[in-house]
């Protein structure tokens, strides 16, 4: 039970790109934990290593050192742990949301959500009704048959969120999910994530460089030059923002 207290546990995670003279330490000695139901932000300037941290947690970027534990399963310990089916972990435990919505252009909004369900062995009919339900709950009930090219930025991002949520993942990872949106749409998306964290009891980790977007987050990690330099509660950020 104790082990499963955290949805994400990262310890002394280091990622070094390249070797020898050209080696770049993108993230160094990062340690963080996120509980289910928590909405957590990673804030930092460009090139500070935010995406690297997120992709290491998202099992698409092999950590050089340190451990990553997702939902009680150790997936990395000085590199990938052998015997772990990363793809399966990704489709069962993780949901991804990215800056560019990353929808599949030749699938409709509904099909983009369905594909995530179908690769996780859901039947077509079940997938269809779940996708419809999800999209409707995100106010996209009238956009089911639209291709991504016919959706607005905010709509596309909500479809991407629906896809990330499709398999009820324990962990949702979002990299600059609001970067392509205007302030209002961005705030709506963040509010939606907040709601989902609570309702679905998922751990949501959001990377952003925009202070204004982290209102209502439970915790905020500040990253600078590959290191986590600060950890604050939302109130503190709000306060510092007001002061700044």
């Amino acid at each position: 039970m104790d082990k499963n207290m955290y949805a994400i546990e990262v310890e002394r995670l280091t990622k070094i790109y390249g070797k020898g003279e050209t080696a770049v330490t993108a993230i160094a000695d990062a340690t963080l934990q996120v509980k289910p139901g928590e909405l957590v932000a990673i804030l930092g300037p460009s090139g500070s290593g935010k995406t690297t941290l997120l992709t290491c947690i998202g099992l698409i970027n092999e950590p050089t050192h340190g451990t990553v534990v997702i939902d009680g399963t150790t997936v990395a310990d000085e590199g990938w742990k052998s015997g772990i089916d990363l793809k399966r972990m990704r489709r069962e435990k993780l949901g991804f949301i990215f800056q560019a919505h990353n929808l599949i252009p030749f699938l409709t909004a509904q099909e983009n959500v369905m594909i995530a369900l179908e690769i996780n062995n859901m039947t077509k009919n079940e997938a269809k009704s779940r996708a419809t339900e999800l999209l409707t709950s995100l106010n996209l009930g009238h956009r089911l048959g639209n291709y991504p090219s016919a959706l607005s930025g905010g709509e596309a991002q909500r479809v991407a969120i629906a896809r990330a949520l499709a398999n009820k993942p324990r962990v949702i990872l979002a990299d600059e999910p609001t970067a392509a949106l205007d302030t209002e749409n961005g705030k709506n998306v963040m509010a939606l994530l907040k709601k989902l964290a609570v309702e679905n009891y998922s751990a949501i980790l959001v990377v952003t460089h925009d202070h204004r977007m982290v209102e209502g987050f439970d915790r905020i990690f500040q990253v600078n030059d590959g290191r986590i330099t600060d950890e604050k509660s939302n109130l503190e950020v709000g306060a510092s923002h007001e002061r700044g």
Partner: protein
Amino acid sequence: MNLAIRDIRYHRGRFILTSIGLGLLLGVVISMGGIYRGLIADALAILHANKADIWVVQQNTNGPFAESSRIPEDIKYRIRAVPGVAEASPLSFQTIQIERHGKPFRFFLIGYEMSGFGGPPEIVAGRGIRQKHYEMVAARAMGMQIGEKIHLGLHDYTIVGLTGKIVSSSGDPVAYVSLVDAQDIQFKKDNDAIRNDRERIGANLANIQTLSPAQGKYLQQNISAITESTHTVNTIVVRLAPGANLHDVQERISRWNHFKPISDAEQTAILAKGMIEKARMQLGLFRVILLVISAVIISLIIYTSTLDKIKVIATLKLIGSQNRVIIGMILQQSLLMGFIAYFIGYGLILLTYEKFPRRIVLEAFDMQILFVIVMVICVISSFVGIRKALKVEPGEALGG
């Protein structure tokens, strides 16, 4: 959900165009196979129409089609006397090229004995030849009307009937006349030449002092008759009586000097293997080249469409898709393209093959084999795309 079909549905214009292009290419491949089969069918058309068991030709030749053969017509009587022979009928063959409506007009003329066999296989319009002289039955492909006259040799011949599709081994349409007419057309000299020949013979005989004028006259008549004789044919076709042994009959005829009995099977081999072997190799080579080109084109199309989909593939990997989902998408597209192109090509040839100048014969077996080959090519061609797709990192989905 079938990703291959969704992608195609979304990019249908591009997919249809490439399939049509590939379809045209496969159409050419199919037509070449059809032309080859057509060559065989043409080569054997006369053989099949005659249904002869044995072709008696000049010794040491593979006549009458592959090589020229000349034998005296009268040998038919001797052949008819061979035990086991039911019918023996002389045939004369010649290729004729004249001018008609200002254009070269080429056909193959068969002379047959009206009481024998080897004449028109069927009459589709008009009637068969009834008179011994100046009537002709033409293949429909010659485009002649019933009642039309055509001048050959020294006389005019009238078309009295049309026969169906029958061509010579080189693909020329066939016309039929009576054997005597055919011999006239082939051998008969014009009147001046005959007169000159007779004068010359008469003058030569007059120089022989020991001949009395009566003897000279008698000799001149006989010599003229022999030199003017046109009783030569190219082959005598033989049908055996039921139960007769082909080998025995052949044996017997080949024991005589000067003649060679070729069985129907041997004649088929001479025509199908010998005469069109080069054409077969040529067409085969073209087909292989075109199939290789198709393979290269399919590979390129699949590879570029995979490159177009790198981000999609990365996204699929990111959300945890199994490799089979991605391989399936690429492979199915490739197969579907080959499948559609095959049927476009097939349909195209089905619609147009009758308008080809040479006969196209589409055999089910050939078509099945080609289908399998096209599918195999599609599978192999998609390997390059699949290789590329499997190397895509899920992280590539992240870039903006």
